[in-house]
């Protein structure tokens, strides 16, 4: 089992002929992801890599290919519209990789997507992977291996670092989800934790948060109340100065809120395992399974 994506995931790639979209569409195909369609306005009727049909609109792509998941690699100014087009076309899961989507665009998108009943992951995220079955996004497939640990993170390469260390230690993953580094995103820690709690194959969860906002504190409260499975957490940004955006749009300490210290305290209060360094995940997860 897994969360959000599995063998039944049929993917349409929005922006499939662009630089990033074509590169990662190829990687997804190589990994074995069922990529059934692509969308680039004006290139309908062509084929990607001589096999994946390209459509002008999401409505046509979904109607003709039966896609249930979309992944978005379009430039930031067009990302909000692409997400809403996907929701309107009726896919259940929308994964937006694009970084740099204006936050006010996202306030409209969140409302629209909710009304259409779709799940959005991202934006500004690496997507997700269920090792051995399906990858939607940009997480490198070869660093993952199937196994019992669920991974959820606000980061990209930090997630790869931890997943790679788990894999090398022989600890595989059910699903790895990157929820993204923006202040407003579609899926939060709690959504993923609740899904991992329900997934019978997930035995423990590794969670990587960072400074900014209160998503980790909310997650800690949820873990304390509702989770039976062990969760090990890490917070990046202990040395970050207040008021400065640390790369991710959402990674900023505002006034005195959103510090690493307050998040780590929330983890402690919830009785979670706390990784002081990324390398500690291996031992802490092993001890708890």
């Amino acid at each position, binding site marked *: 089992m897994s969360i959000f994506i599995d063998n039944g995931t049929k993917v349409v790639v929005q922006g499939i002929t662009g630089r990033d979209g074509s590169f990662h569409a190829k990687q997804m195909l190589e990994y074995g992801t069922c990529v059934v369609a692509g969308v680039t306005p004006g290139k309908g009727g062509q084929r990607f890599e001589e096999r994946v049909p390209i459509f002008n609109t999401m409505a046509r792509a979904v109607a003709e290919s039966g896609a249930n998941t979309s992944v978005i690699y379009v430039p*930031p*100014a067009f990302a909000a519209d692409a997400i809403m087009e996907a929701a309107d076309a009726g896919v259940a899961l929308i994964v937006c990789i694009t970084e*740099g*989507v*204006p*936050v*006010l665009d*996202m*306030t*409209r998108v*969140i*409302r629209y997507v909710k009304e259409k009943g779709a799940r959005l992951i991202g934006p500004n995220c*690496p997507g997700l992977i269920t090792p051995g079955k399906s990858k939607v996004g*940009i*997480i*490198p497939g070869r*660093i993952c291996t199937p196994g019992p640990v669920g991974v959820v*993170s*606000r*980061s*990209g*390469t*930090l*997630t*790869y*670092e931890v997943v*790679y260390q788990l894999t090398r230690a022989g600890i595989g993953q059910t699903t790895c989800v990157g929820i993204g*580094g923006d*202040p*407003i995103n579609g899926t939060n820690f709690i959504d993923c934790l609740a899904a991992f709690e329900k997934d019978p194959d997930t035995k423990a969860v590794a969670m*990587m948060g*960072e*400074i900014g*906002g*209160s*998503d980790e504190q909310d997650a800690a409260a949820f873990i304390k109340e509702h989770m039976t499975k062990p969760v090990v957490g*890490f917070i*990046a*940004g*202990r*040395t*970050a*100065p207040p008021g*400065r*955006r*640390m*790369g*991710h*749009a*959402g*990674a900023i300490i505002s*006034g*005195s809120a959103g510090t*690493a210290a307050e998040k780590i305290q929330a983890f402690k209060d919830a009785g979670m395992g706390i990784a*002081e*360094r*990324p*390398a500690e995940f291996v031992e802490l997860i092993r001890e708890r399974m």
Partner: protein
Amino acid sequence: MNIHEYQAKDIFRRHGIPVPPGEVASTPEEAEQIASQYGGTVVVKAQVHAGGRGKAGGVKLAKTPAEAKTLASQILGMRIKDLPVQRVLVTPAADIATEAYVGIVVDRASKRAVFMVSPAGGIDIEEVAAKTPDKIMRLAVDPAFGLLPFEAMQLGFFLYDDVKKVRAAARIMEQLYEAFVEVGASLAEINPLVTTPAGDVLALDAKIVIDDNELARRPDLSALRDESAEAPSEVAARRAGLTFVKLDGNVGCVVNGAGLAMATMDLVKYYGGEPANFLDIGGSSNPEKVVNALKIITADPNVKAILFNIFGGITRTDDVANGIVTATKSNPLKVPIIIRLTGTNEEIAVQILEKNGFSAMTDMDTAVQKAVELATGGKAA
């Protein structure tokens, strides 16, 4: 991106919000000239990206043009929260009957723009929120409809009893929301919103923070950036397409990805060192970016060791290796460099580095410990 009060007031005026007149001066003589033009008492206000300007002595009343000149010469030389004051706003002093607070922020929890208004204005709103939360009204705006007229009236009635003032305030709320959306702000604030003895309602101060993600499609807003208010290294980094934040330590860090970059800084601290910076070279691995990153980091005289931490996913580690070789050939390093890379094309990267006299590590903890040791000139903790 922060903009100055006088720039925010220009945006307010464009949207019809009543704002007192005012002009910007960058010399004491200009301040004197503007003051004599208005006649009467003026306020001289430091234009700097920092809160608490009044407390720091950056806002002063001048009764005469000569006094405006003297005060401007004091304020123009000041540093407020370590930022140099290069301009002052000179504006006629207003008669104030009451002061209120009006702000809009993008709220992460409700995922909407949220109004916060309080009749306790002119002071720190975080303090009001902590001590007397019942003095603040919050209202989340539905992005599909915008601020509705009855909502604007509710906000107005929270501030005033007199319906004339309530209507004036409600109009300002609507105009402020329009301005907020039009410039793609993440924060817009009127602190204080004042009433005069004559019963007028006006915005005495203005603060707008523009969402950085808005700037790519809005060259008119990017033009408002004041680069003289930033560290030169940060300006250079932004121009090179790098995300960089200068810190006070001595271990220069070059990392791909924001989360890993923060985790690397934290690990430097964990092993007893101090990071000199946050630097994310991003996902795509253009050797040019590595060259620019090294230029910026080596320009900092505090840096005693350089640490590369690259996890090759999309980033090809051989591109990073080539960037390091190119950069150090044209500009030989004066401080030691520790390179940790793993992932895509790792074997090729290691070959390139070794052929050019560098060595590479694969483990993050070992690399950070070594860098700290070299920077502190002793054994790592």
